[in-house]
């Protein structure tokens, strides 16, 4: 078995030569060096008003990027006004500011080929800016004003609300996306912030005052980490500009809602939406880990082996060997409270039970049998050797640094990440799998045409039939 030998010896061209005797390998290249890249630290500043700034100079192109991470997220929406954070974020720019009308912002930015975009994710809000160096002054002035003094123009607010309502009416157009969203909703419960979605009633409940109050609470300098990279003369010069535009923004207290602990069902449930579509979507969810649990290192390696790419166990068995799916993968999401482990697959209804059984079986297998050393090593090599791609550009790098501080990681998290992965061994993989994978208790979510199913769903556990809405 050449493959086994190849993997046992590791990554170098000699082993390629072993696997493939036809290759002529020059002796000078017989060993591949490790990837030698220590990510630059960049600079970190704190303004008098508490805003944290990460900065990395990069004079290769006449472009400047900024990204502000604002500490909030969809999970902070009030229960009766789900969607408030999203609408507030999207109206920062579109709703104009104290000194700029919405039309003037659009005209200026678009004429300069610059962009200012603000958005809301589950656990973070963002305001991003990209601008050619020559236009920095004009665009930074807009950027600062929309962050500090957004006006939430009433007409733009109505338009955005109407769009949100329209999107709700369209949320089930694509069944594969529907499956992912509804699976999480069933897993965490429809009333928990980790699982909820916007509804017509929650959008309609939002008024203009809510936007202002939301902004006044969360958009404060001491609640923001700003990443900056690009073509400026020096850190001091850029810092002076930022102080001028953002330094007078007063700090203040931010109130965060208390999010109820998650409650995850401890026994198998099958949730099902019956829909006449060509492909069945399968989502398996299991209880995951909290954000700073060091189990993330062995879990990352384990997940890479299980469902991380086209040579992973799930893809190998379900896709390449059996031809049952184009899309099959697993991943895990860390959260402040318990995150989730997701395994997903799309297959025709006639083979849904084969695919689902094999997915569950792969979770059992990795718990039961210690994985071969070379498989664990390959997964680690894959992650360690491609680590450098997290920093493809200076802006990627400095944004990552800002993000890890935002999520509360230790300052050396990125710099020790590779070493921590390298420590993972087969024993850690099986221990982690035994601890975290409980496929028998997994929550299974399926959308598909039951008339064509090869086996009844009830073979996989108690079934709750849901209506699409």
């Amino acid at each position, binding site marked *: *078995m*050449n*493959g086994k030998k*190849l993997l046992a010896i*590791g990554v170098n*061209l000699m082993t*390629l030569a072993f*696997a493939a*005797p036809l*290759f002529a*390998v*020059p002796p000078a290249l017989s060993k*591949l060096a490790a990837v030698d*890249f220590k990510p630059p630290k960049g600079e970190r500043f704190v303004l008098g008003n508490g805003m944290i700034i990460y900065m990395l100079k990069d004079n*290769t*192109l*006449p*472009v400047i990027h900024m990204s502000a991470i604002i500490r909030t997220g969809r999970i902070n929406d009030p229960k009766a006004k789900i969607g408030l954070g999203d609408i507030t974020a999207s109206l920062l720019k*579109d709703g104009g500011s104290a000194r700029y009308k919405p039309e003037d912002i*659009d005209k200026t930015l*678009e*004429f300069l*080929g*610059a962009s200012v975009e603000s958005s809301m994710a589950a656990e973070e809000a963002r305001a991003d800016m990209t601008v*050619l*160096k020559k236009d920095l002054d004009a665009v930074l002035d807009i950027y600062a004003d929309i962050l500090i003094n957004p006006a939430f123009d009433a007409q733009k607010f109505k*338009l955005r609300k109407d*769009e949100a*309502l*329209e*999107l709700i*009416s*369209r949320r*089930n*157009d*694509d*069944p594969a996306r529907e499956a992912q969203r509804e699976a999480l909703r069933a897993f965490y419960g429809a009333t928990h912030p980790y699982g909820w979605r916007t509804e017509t009633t929650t959008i309609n409940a939002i008024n203009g005052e809510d936007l202002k109050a939301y902004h006044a609470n969360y958009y404060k300098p001491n609640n923001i980490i700003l990443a900056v990279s690009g073509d400026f003369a020096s850190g001091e010069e850029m810092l002076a500009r930022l102080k001028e535009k953002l330094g007078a923004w007063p700090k203040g207290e931010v109130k965060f809602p208390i999010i109820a602990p998650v409650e995850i069902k401890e026994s198998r449930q099958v949730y099902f939406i019956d829909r*006449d*579509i*060509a*492909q069945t979507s399968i989502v398996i969810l299991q209880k995951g880990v909290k954000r700073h649990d060091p189990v993330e290192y062995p879990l990352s390696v384990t997940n890479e082996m299980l469902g991380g*790419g*086209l*040579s992973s166990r799930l893809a*190998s068995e379900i896709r*390449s060997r059996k*031809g049952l799916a*184009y*899309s099959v993968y697993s991943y895990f999401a860390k959260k402040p409270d318990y995150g989730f482990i997701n395994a997903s697959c799309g*297959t*025709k209804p006639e083979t849904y039970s084969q695919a689902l059984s094999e997915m569950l079986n792969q979770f059992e297998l990795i718990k039961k049998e210690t994985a071969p050393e070379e498989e664990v090593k*390959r*997964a680690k090599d*894959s992650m360690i*050797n491609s*680590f*450098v791609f997290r*920093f*493809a550009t*200076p802006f990627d790098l400095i944004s990552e640094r800002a993000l890890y501080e935002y999520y509360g990681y230790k300052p050396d998290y990125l710099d020790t990440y590779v070493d921590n992965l390298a420590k993972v061994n087969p024993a850690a993989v099986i221990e982690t799998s035994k601890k975290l994978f409980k496929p028998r208790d997994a929550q299974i979510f399926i959308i598909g045409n039951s008339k064509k199913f090869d086996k009844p769903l009830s073979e996989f556990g108690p079934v709750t039939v849901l209506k699409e809405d």
Partner: protein
Amino acid sequence: MKISLLLPSILLCCAPLYAAGEPAPSEMEKLGASIEKDPKFPPVVSYTLKNGLRLLILEKHFVPTVSFTMMFKVGNVDNEQGKTGLAHLFEHMAFKGTKNINSTGYGKEKIALDKVEIAAKAVIAGETSDNPDPKKLEALRKEMAAAELEADKLIVKDEYWKIYNELGESGMNAMTSTDYTGYVVSLPSNRLEAWMTIESDRFKNAVLREFYKERSVVMEERRMGESDPNRLMWETLFQNAFTAHPYHNPTIGWMDDLKRLTRTDAEKFFNKFYAPNNATLAVVGDIKPGEVIKLAEKHFASWPKKEIPERVYTKEPPQKAEKKINVFFKAKPMLRIGFHNPGFNNPDIYGLIMVSEVLSNGKTSRFYRNLVEGKELALYANSYHSTPGNRYPSLFVISAAPKAPHTLEELETGINEELEKLKKEPPTQWELDKIINNYEADMIKQLESNSGLGMSLAHNQEILGDWKYDWTTGAELRKIKPEDVSRMAARYLTRDNKTMVFLVEPEKTEGK
């Protein structure tokens, strides 16, 4: 004027990006390569091997990585009649290894694979016969499964992928379009020779093992598309706008064709089109161009040049009808509109690019201002000057969705009003200047990503004939005058050149 001032400043500023590692011209000349010296363009090194493989190399530094794009001029248009989807299925097969990779020994394996092929052809004949005999078919399928089982024993599973995993790949993928097939991967830059070793073997010695399993994977990919209304809409638009030209066919293939494709078909296709003289390789990143050239000579020079068959396909006859198609699908309404464009070799295309940008570039565009805001008819409204391909005349397209309570018909009327207005009144100079500025800014931002830039260099060289295409297009766009934009809109966005696809919820067809 703004534009003329902007351009030189951009180019000067670009210089430091390359200055550090810019290859010495004399070294390049000794190797027989040429280096772009015009400061309007990045200093790309061009080199062509004797077998016709063209290299485009750009040295860029920050992280020690390199991005590879191997672009072949072969796409869905090049399939024979009845074999749609073959170009794409082959692309999947190109990850299945070679005579050396994924194999415990090709000699034995070949015999086993040939047995699978005989069994598979019998199954296909049985399945596609007018009166399939279920019992006989069952027996044939069993025979095929047994043959596959034997062949699979000789495989080193997923070895090709595993090698790249260990090398530390990022973004390993491939893409097939109507026009081209591209293979991309980024690696730490000290893997340069590893890439050369593996990929030269891949394209010289491909073995299409596990073919029928992968065909099933592609069928699932097709089903995924059938479940997604957006994909269904595009497929329906191309299918109806093109009647004679192969842009009519979906790149994923018609299901009926997929069911009949064989490994023999895919091997023929490979032997016909996968040749060094039908490809461009772009290498962008932390490398030395001289090193890339030497290693490419070492590993790719023995890849034999082939006679690529002349590719003449039925030209799409002028459309002389307004077409409207209702697709019934359980999703909210949306529409796609296509107008035939004159193709990339026709200078009218530049005016059409401007038409599209005036209509839909950003929130100051006409569609956004008047349809999304203004009349509030649309959730979104976009346009693009050329889809699904660029090798042949394709379509100027509009995609939009109505916002309730407005209907598709109201949205269509709103779109038509915008088109008619543009035909009659030239856009303002501000609208055109804005587009040029955006284009220039995008050209700079494009240089940030190694993989994105590599893709664009390889595509533009291999498919449009010039890696500088994006830069020269900028120059052409600057020549467009407001009245040209109206003239192009009037020439191409006409009723007899128009195909519309509306997505309608099935309930409505039953009068509910």
